[in-house]
């Protein structure tokens, strides 16, 4: 087995556009959960409306791609309002239920046959991001030893990581302001915030919208990245990957989701390449593990890693471990 090849695959996974996109969506989730304490179990729903908002605008309305991205973000605002208005005045669990259900309802809606003329139904939509690739400034692939990034990948990485770091910068500015202080107060105790004259509902709504918009932006990037979307790419498990990423890196840390995503994708692609390599090298007996099991095994391994992390660093890789030890009285 070529160790260098395995590692380079893993590094490509960790730095690739998917890692940036997941980091961006997890940054949105971090605004929800990490800073405001909102339980959003349907972040993938925001990604879905972002992706379809972009694709449909381009394909059905001949809008420029950037307008499509904005439309996707506007859809997220609407979704956040629909989810938030009835539930944010209630206890936290109601938002959790509403978001998880809404994400699934949206997926079924977009894949239903009556929506097919617009959404493409189960087949989804393809070829809507030509404009993006047409303005690719990279003319040659980048080669660093065994690492190789194509022009296309470079362009995607530049844009996706650029947006992700911009979003992280935005979050940094927000949470280090009095606005962010109110957000954290709402996370700690809504009634205490109310007793000091803070309109808790409005802050929760703003947080939900903001995090949702970042999710939608991630969805748009995902759509642009693959140039093809189907509703079944937006299954609930994506939301749980995002939670994993956020907790792995450290919730309520600005760079937590970014670090979490890099580590998550590194582990995932590393294990995949490693297991495949080990199998073809005959290190693992065929009776023990079939090639088709690799996908499942690598997630099991990531889960195991997460469990170990929770034991040894419960607040995540860069989380404030002291914060977590505060007892609740």
């Amino acid at each position: 087995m070529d160790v260098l090849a395995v590692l380079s695959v893993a590094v490509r996974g960790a730095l690739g556009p998917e890692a940036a996109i997941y980091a961006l969506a997890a940054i949105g989730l971090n605004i929800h959960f990490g800073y405001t304490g909102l339980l959003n179990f349907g972040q993938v729903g925001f990604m879905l409306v972002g992706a379809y908002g972009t694709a449909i605008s381009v394909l059905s309305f001949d809008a420029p791609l950037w307008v499509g991205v904005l439309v996707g973000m506007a859809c997220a605002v609407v979704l956040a309002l629909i989810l938030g208005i009835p539930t944010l005045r209630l206890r936290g669990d109601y938002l959790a239920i509403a978001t998880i259900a809404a994400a699934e309802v949206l997926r079924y809606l977009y894949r239903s046959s009556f929506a097919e003329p617009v959404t493409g139904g189960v087949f989804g939509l393809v070829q809507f991001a030509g404009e993006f690739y047409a303005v690719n400034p990279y003319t040659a692939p980048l080669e660093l030893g065994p690492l190789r990034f194509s022009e296309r990948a470079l362009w995607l990485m530049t844009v996706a990581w650029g947006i992700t770091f911009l979003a992280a910068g935005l979050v940094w500015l927000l949470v280090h302001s009095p606005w962010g202080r109110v957000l954290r107060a709402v996370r700690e105790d809504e009634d205490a915030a109310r007793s000091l004259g803070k309109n808790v509902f409005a802050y929760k709504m703003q947080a939900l919208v903001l995090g949702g918009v970042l999710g939608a932006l991630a969805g748009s990037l995902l759509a642009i990245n693959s140039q093809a979307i189907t509703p079944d790419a937006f299954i609930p498990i994506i939301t749980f990957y995002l939670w994993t990423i956020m907790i792995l890196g450290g919730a309520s840390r600005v760079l937590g989701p970014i670090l979490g995503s890099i580590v998550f994708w590194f582990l995932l692609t590393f294990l995949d390449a490693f297991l495949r390599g080990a199998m073809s090298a005959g290190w693992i007996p065929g009776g023990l593990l079939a090639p088709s099991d690799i996908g499942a095994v690598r997630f099991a391994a990531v889960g195991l890693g997460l469990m170990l992390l929770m034991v040894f660093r419960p607040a995540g890789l860069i989380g404030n471990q002291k914060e977590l030890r505060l007892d609740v009285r």
Partner: protein
Amino acid sequence: MSDDRHEDLLAQRESVREQEQEREDTPSVGARRAAAALAGVANVPGVAKPDAILVADDMSRHFGGVRAVEVEHLEIQRGTITALIGPNGAGKSTFFNLITGFDRPNSGRWSFDGRDISGAPSFRIARHGMVRTFQLTKALTRLTSLENLMLGATGQRGERLLASLLRPAWAAQEAGIRHRAEELLARFNLSHMRDEFAGTMSGGQRKLLEMARALMVQPDMILLDEPMAGVNPALTQSLLGHIETLRDEGMTIVLVEHDMDVIMSISDWVVCFAQGKVIAEGRPDDIRRDTAVIDAYLGSQRSLQEDQT
């Protein structure tokens, strides 16, 4: 313990005693003003006050069969320290919850500073200038003490989403708020906890923190639910002094308290609750001898002892 330390302590205790003495000997401006304002007011439940800041009518709140609050009429005089007393479960905290918008009454209307605030959301009531603390403290555990206090300031420009991105728009105001918060922390003996998470504080420190945080709002009226519970005697004395100063500056204070010595020493007016109703109100000395209060709350033993001393 070193001699120095001991001397210090003795001196501290002496000064506390002096403060107490002083308080008993010479009523403060606020106390005199309050006494004068309440001079002609009769000792009957629901009596009208000359300058009421809070007026509550027909307030009721039932939990299943429990009539937690059944207040026909209650007025709180502006610029006084009013104590709410009554046995456990009398409905004092529930009454606080109702008038501050944290709970909805089954019926009732109430107004603050001449403005009808029946049914208004709690945050708006706080913005109108009526702020409360909680019997079970609500420290914001993963915020530092300083952040806890700074949160209390009202009218913060940086608390608006878009403005928060423009640091220059709120930096100066923030510095002023920080300064005020540090002063209050010092006043409540919490300066050493400035940058510690509130979650690391002791129960008594949290009580202090919560009261200081409420004061950051600069309210016209503050409702304190057992502010002295779990606070050590020396600090209780200095807190009482602080509360009196607030009253002298014109703030209206309502506090729930079970310690009769505290009540006798600082309140201008006492309202006694029992089983949801106001059963008596009046000046501290009258309340101590009120038979209804003795039966429901003080117990005959206690009042006898006090009469002998």
